[in-house]
């Protein structure tokens, strides 16, 4: 049967997701956003460092979003991660290709 795997491998009840996890993740995202704004609006680091640092903050924030808010940390997310990772790979190649096109 198609949904046999559901009843056999996954428990019907699971530990209720804690609101706390999402709030901690949310606060971290806010802090990362504020950090990116501070980098640009205040001269805290040399200009050459601003872009790599900002990109780093953005990547961390997106990973938090994917693995907490979008529930990729839950069991049975392997295929979801594979799909989005493949998308990201093609995306990075495409964007870099366009930017560095002679």
């Amino acid at each position, binding site marked *: 049967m198609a949904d046999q795997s559901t009843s056999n491998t996954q428990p019907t009840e699971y530990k209720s*997701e804690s609101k706390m996890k999402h*709030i901690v993740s949310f606060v971290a995202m806010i802090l990362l956003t504020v950090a990116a704004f501070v980098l640009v609006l205040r001269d805290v680091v040399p200009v050459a460092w601003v872009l790599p640092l900002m990109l780093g*903050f953005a990547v961390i924030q997106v990973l938090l979003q994917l693995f907490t808010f979008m529930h990729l940390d839950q069991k049975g997310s392997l295929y979801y991660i594979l799909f989005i990772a493949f*998308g990201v790979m093609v*995306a990075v190649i*495409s964007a870099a290709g366009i930017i560095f096109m002679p």
Partner: protein
Amino acid sequence: MAHHPVEIKPGMHLETATFEGKNKVMGFWMFLGAETVLFACLFGTYLALRNQTVNGPSGAELFDPVLVAVATAILLFSSLTSVFAMMAMNKLDKKGMLFWLGVTVLLGLSFLVLEIYEFVHYIHEGHTFMSSAFGSSFYALVGTHGAHVTFGIIWISTIMYQAWKWGINTETAPKLFVSSLYWHFIDVVWVFIFTLVYLLGMVG
């Protein structure tokens, strides 16, 4: 396919309780992978052309950090309320879920109003889709994101109506879950927009 009766209990993953629901969520992640590529191409185009302003205003002259910060806060907060809605859904708390979805939609609407105000302001400053390569690539990228926000608002609203009418069950839960994933994805794209368009534009 035939519907298998699923015993609904609070605290279970309703969105993936049926085979159909599982497929819906998996297919949606595939779609999000494709969306990532779409936005990456728009980002690449923008980054390649952002200094081609002809005689129009540049990003450094146009972008207002306060407005961007407010828009970012609104969207980030709406992402959190969308998570709260999904937690309420899995507790079978229909009232709570509709409340948080309502807050999400209202935040989305206020983001959209802010963006329209911003675009109208830019047009008065001489920054339009036609003014330069910077203008075209800017509106193509930020406009596509805005179109996603608009679609998300309409989508979530219609599914709220279905949930209000039919309740939370294995039929409505995957739809609600998938629309919430879409909403988070919109916020993910915005993280890169405020970083690579607005903040990078202010650095020059």
